[in-house]
């Protein structure tokens, strides 16, 4: 199994897009309808000052049907997932969840996954965790690993083949 299988969820792609589209249409029709553009989400957004993310505008664009533009935009990848917008929205719109759906859609439609996500996914597939045991440096510049600190063995999937078989089902499931 490869990353491609997992991110494109196998064949046929059109079914997957349809399902994700349905999910977003639901967000568009039912949820973004409640938004009255008070911008409380944007006023508390952790990514607003630094990266110009404006969650209320994301909701407005979705409402206007600019789905492809959003999916192909880099701005959806600037969310810090602090969840303040979900917590504070007086209409329970949760822009952070809309952004997760848009990012999932971008990945499923074959757009390149940014940054280290691919590496982390690869590591999960091969050993169950986003990274293996790392060497760490002490205040006095000694290098140490987990076992040298007297910590017990790492908990990770015992039978990797079976573990992968479970994840494989997600690849076949088309979200």
């Amino acid at each position, binding site marked *: 199994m490869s990353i491609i299988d*997992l*991110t494109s*969820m196998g064949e046929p792609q059109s079914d997957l897009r349809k399902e994700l589209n349905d999910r977003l249409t639901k967000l568009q029709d039912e949820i973004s309808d409640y938004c009255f553009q008070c911008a409380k989400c944007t006023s508390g957004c*952790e*990514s607003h000052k*630094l*990266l110009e993310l404006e969650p209320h505008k994301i909701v407005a664009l979705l409402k206007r049907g600019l789905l492809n533009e959003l999916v192909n935009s880099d701005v959806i*990848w*600037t*969310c*810090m*997932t*602090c*969840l*303040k917008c*979900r*917590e504070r929205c007086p209409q329970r719109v949760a822009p952070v969840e809309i952004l*997760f*759906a848009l*990012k*999932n859609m971008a*990945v*499923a439609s074959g757009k390149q996954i*940014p*940054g*280290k*996500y691919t590496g*982390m*996914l690869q590591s*999960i597939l091969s050993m*169950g*965790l*986003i*990274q*293996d*045991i*790392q060497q*760490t*440096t002490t*205040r*006095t510049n*000694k290098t*140490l690993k*987990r076992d040298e*600190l007297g*910590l017990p063995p*790492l*908990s*990770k*999937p*015992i039978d990797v083949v*079976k573990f992968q*078989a*479970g*994840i*494989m*089902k*997600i690849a076949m*499931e088309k*979200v």
Partner: protein
Amino acid sequence: MKKKYSLFPGCLMPTEQYAYELSIRETLPLLGVELVDVEGFSCCGEPMKSVNQLLTVYLSARNLAIAEKHHLDVFAPCAMCHLALTECQHILEENPAMKERINGMLAAEGLQYTVKRQVVHTVDLLYDQVGIEKIKEHVKKPLNGLKIAAHYGCHIIRPSEIGRPDDSENPQKIEAILKVLGAEPVNYPQKLDCCGAPLLANLPESALTKTGQKLQAIQEQGIQGMVDVCPWCHKMFDSRQTKAGETVAAKLDVPVLYLTQLLGLAMGISGEKLGLELNLSPVEKLQLGDVK
């Protein structure tokens, strides 16, 4: 009454944030919490939420099912893991069709999710399960009024609708614990600011800027140190403090400890046992015990 939990380590704590694990294993058993190591856990799935949300739910359900197989409740010291596991329970309890679907996939490993078991984080485990009174009994070296800023981390306080360890807008449990240790918790305007870690995967410079801004604010207010309760937050505030300083053009020197490290020091445990030699921020400034 003895409390027993499976320790769900996640990815970051057991592969690089060793000080958190060391200090948890030193302090909690002395406070009557039995930690059970279980084989076979995997990533909680939260880091993959932007890529594929179903994978997140599946991985969390898988870990919950492993704990269930051992008839154990779960202690997840990482804020991200705690959110993923709690949200997964919420989804599976609310949506029987999703539960059936996920259980179909879990069958590949002979696992099943059937009951909602307790999932705790360091903060509610200490405050609600162990309790302030019990902690008080174990304080041997009070912290002499050290002025400390508490950093909760976004994922343990939000979203409140699924139940989180502390209040979303005015969390106070860490402050209550700091007080009983003899420290003086400081209220500061940036308390709820994010550490930036979720952006490490794709926008590392911005992530570090976020870290730098919060630390700089703490430094300017003359607060003596900071405690955190999440391996991702700590990776930013402690392990990468020097780099974070570069992004905001400031020389940062804020001592940052895990809450469990400070707890251990107040309980009279040596700095070495609590992994203090692994903190890269200037913890020696706090002049606690044998910390150099």
